[in-house]
């Protein structure tokens, strides 16, 4: 195959190209870079300097070492499905794309673990082991295309993390390239509780600001013997949310407990996977119970009783796997479905104490009324993770800003009732300022202090996760440094 020549005199590009597999593994021309100017958070865009596609850990380490030595900003990117802008090159970064590192390296069923490269797609892992009766638990809605490396960076959740936990609960070991190019193994051999600080836990969810993960040992689980799903329609949202509390109070730990409000239902019914939900109900609950078959019937009966005692309009269990799958497809494509009823939408990701749901929904309705923008709510009700979807039209001048303000106001409501600003999508660039809703300056500084240990030059994914330093924090930091020196 005839190799094209590099059409640039930029020495950095020439050097970077030499570290990967030639021209097919680097992009540097504007037309090519345009697809990398944002991720799933499309409101903010910026062009990278280049995109490189390493194929192994050594190549990643070499690229990082070079960037570190040359003072070039850089960041890692998976499938680019992140919803908070974590992979957007704010500082003209060299993007290190992990998509060529997509191998499933090993599966060890006896010890319930698998080792994957970071570019391996989440759902492919479950698909590779499902014939043996195993699966990988974290199931973000984008699991058919998002990568496990990205899941680690964001500590991704999913509908079924109510019972089984989020990504951090399933990571046993990581190979990491630190921002100076050094390769370290954390959680050697995937053995739990390695002595020393829990860097596995710290790195998971650090949004690509502490290191670049190049190999991941994950825990896999045995498929539950059986699962059953219940669908319930409520005329009043209060009844729906009371039913959620009652189910949990009854001592049931559902595998998933999802809620959608009227606007969200309108969206999913107008999109690709309609199931015929009535359009005049205020809330829908999707409840899944899994485990030993012998014990499930009883729990399903209990759930049906709870719903009936809370004035449910209609409630029933899925009659077969096909119906169950249809309900889930309808729910899992919920965000995208908003495209069917609105030109643009903004997804938010607050978390609230479950009991505050009626109060929070009322306040979100007020935000919607005040801003004149419709807000749909998709809710992982079991663990209090609320996704308000602000519907807007970017073609109307000023409406994008208005949508962002409304989104931020929703997060303020969540924070004010004792919740937090993000449950699974991460802070990225989108919620940097909202970090102040939940953390004081000292607490943010405690976190940037940790970043300095890993990423002292802040060349790796700078400008993410933390608000621009407030005056107060800067002064305090100066004082602290003066005291130390």
């Amino acid at each position, binding site marked *: 195959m005839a190799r094209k020549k590099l059409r640039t005199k930029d020495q950095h590009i020439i050097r970077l190209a030499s570290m990967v597999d030639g021209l097919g593994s680097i992009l540097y021309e504007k037309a090519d870079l345009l697809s990398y100017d944002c991720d799933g958070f499309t409101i903010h865009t910026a062009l990278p300097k280049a995109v490189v596609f390493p194929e192994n850990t050594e190549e990643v380490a070499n690229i990082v070492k070079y960037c570190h030595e040359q003072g070039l900003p850089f960041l890692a990117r998976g499938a680019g499905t992140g919803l908070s802008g974590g992979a957007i090159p704010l500082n003209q970064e060299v993007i290190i794309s992990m998509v060529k590192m997509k191998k499933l390296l090993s599966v060890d069923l006896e010890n319930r673990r698998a080792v994957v490269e970071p570019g391996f797609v989440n759902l492919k892992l479950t698909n590779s082991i499902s014939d043996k009766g195993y699966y990988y638990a974290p199931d973000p809605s984008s699991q058919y295309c998002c990568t496990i490396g990205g899941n680690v960076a964001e500590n991704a959740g999913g509908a079924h993390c109510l019972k089984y936990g989020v990504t951090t609960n399933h990571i046993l070991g990581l190979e990491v390239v630190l921002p100076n190019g050094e390769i370290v193994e954390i959680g050697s051999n995937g*053995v739990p509780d390695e002595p020393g600080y829990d860097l596995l836990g710290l790195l998971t969810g650090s949004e690509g600001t502490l290191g670049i993960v190049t190999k991941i040992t994950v825990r896999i689980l045995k498929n539950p013997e059986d699962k059953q799903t219940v669908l319930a329609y409520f005329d009043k949202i209060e009844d729906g949310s009371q039913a959620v509390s009652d189910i949990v109070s009854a001592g049931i730990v559902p595998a998933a407990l999802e809620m959608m409000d009227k606007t969200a239902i309108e969206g999913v019914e107008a999109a690709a996977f309609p199931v015929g939900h009535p359009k005049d109900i205020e809330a829908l609950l999707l409840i899944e119970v899994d485990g030993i078959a012998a014990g499930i019937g009883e729990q399903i009966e209990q759930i049906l009783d709870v719903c009936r005692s809370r004035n449910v309009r209609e409630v029933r269990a899925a009659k077969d796997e096909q119906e169950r799958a249809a309900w889930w497809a309808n729910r899992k494509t919920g965000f995208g479905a908003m495209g069917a009823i609105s030109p643009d939408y903004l997804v938010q990701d607050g978390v609230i104490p479950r009991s505050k749901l009626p109060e929070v929904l009322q306040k979100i309705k007020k935000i919607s009324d005040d801003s004149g923008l419709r807000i749909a709510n998709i809710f992982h009700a079991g663990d209090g993770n609320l996704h308000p979807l602000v519907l807007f039209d970017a073609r109307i001048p000023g409406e994008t800003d208005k949508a962002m303000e409304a989104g931020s106001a929703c997060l303020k409501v969540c924070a004010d009732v004792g919740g937090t600003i993000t449950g699974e999508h991460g802070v990225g660039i989108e919620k940097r300022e909202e970090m102040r809703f939940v953390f004081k300056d000292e607490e943010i500084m405690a976190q940037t202090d940790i970043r300095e240990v890993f990423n002292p030059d802040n060349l790796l994914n700078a400008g993410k996760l933390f608000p621009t330093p407030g005056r107060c924090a800067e002064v305090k930091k100066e004082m602290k440094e003066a005291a130390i020196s």
Partner: protein
Amino acid sequence: MITANLEKLQILLKADQIKDTAETAHPYGNSGAMTVFPNNENEIVAILKFATENSFTVNIMGAGTKRGYGGMNERADILLSLEKYTGIVEHHPGDMTITVKAGTPFQEIQDHLKAYSQRIALDPFLPEQTTIGGLVSSNDSGPKRLGYGAARDAVIGLRMIYPDGTIIRSGGKVVKNVAGYDMNKLFIGSMGTIGVISEVTIKLRPITKAESTMIISFPISDMGSIKNLSVRVLDSTIEPVCFELINPELMERMTGEKSYSLVMSFEDVEKSVSYQEEFIQGLMKDGIKLRRLKGEESVQFWQSFYHLLPNGNKVDSQFRSETVLKIGTINMNILSILKDCELIQDTNNVTIQAHGGLGHGIMNMYINGVANDVRDAIEKVRNIAQKHQGYAIIRHLPFEQRKQTDIWGPKPAAFFLFEGIKLKVDPNRILNRNRYIGGI
């Protein structure tokens, strides 16, 4: 030196909150020339500021059950005891979360939660004595870790006090949270070296309607058949919350019967528990024995299990000087480790009692014998653990013996990051100095 500053300390605390402990040596070390007993968070902050200003070192203690767990200094200037800093700050039954002060004994919290049919899904050793702060600081877990997870999976928020008195909250009060770095994870298991835990927020689980414990014993020590049966159970769809292999010596101590045994627990609704019991019943064949522990029998078994671990604060007649190791390995390698350790009992003239979770890979090993023999045995066990991709650390040993023993084994590759973190948070290294791996 500290006594000269006693007056300053007396301004901060009442007389009965300060105890001169300069003369009393504790066999497990990790003590202080002066012991202080704060009642509230402000007092903890004041004590830490006082220590920082005067460059005093501070050891932190809950109930002291883990005094034998790490620590190369006999005493610090100040022993900060949290035993009087107890109580529930808030419990939201509807949200299934609870916030407690660090010095609260674990069982006290469970007793409170029982009235709400809720619990913390953790099963630490010495539950009546161990404090929630101590449990979290050591990321302790019991055999039910397979079904429950460890402290790192249950804790959702912490209020930490840094050495300079700054209060740092990490996580929050909701069960799902990715705002900022997961600083909880950094503090959990940090052995008190990067801050004092003030409050812990934990997610709760419902108490299950039914539970049952079954023991399969193998009178013939055949690792092959133990493994076959274990793989069959773990590869099935039944869901034991505990799947612990106990070696013959430990089983003899607990029940009088000396044979390798698998202990399984099931917790679910009644029908599911019976179904799983029947499944196990169906696996039985000649040469193995099955016992189902019912009611009081089951309670007593677990009672004695959770008290296998010696209490590091006990120095009375119950003083036990045995060595306890924590071993982490790849799940099924526990079988090989136990097998390899059989030999050490003979070559070193020690007894080794051990159990390990075949579903999670964590083992505890109790070694008894003459000090020199034990020391040599520890090294051998560590080598065996490493041969099986694992590690061995010492989680209980008197101070004099600790001084002559490598507690934590080799430093991992990421050690320089631990050091960097320690120095960022505690630049003067006043908190639990030398308590943790590599002297951090």
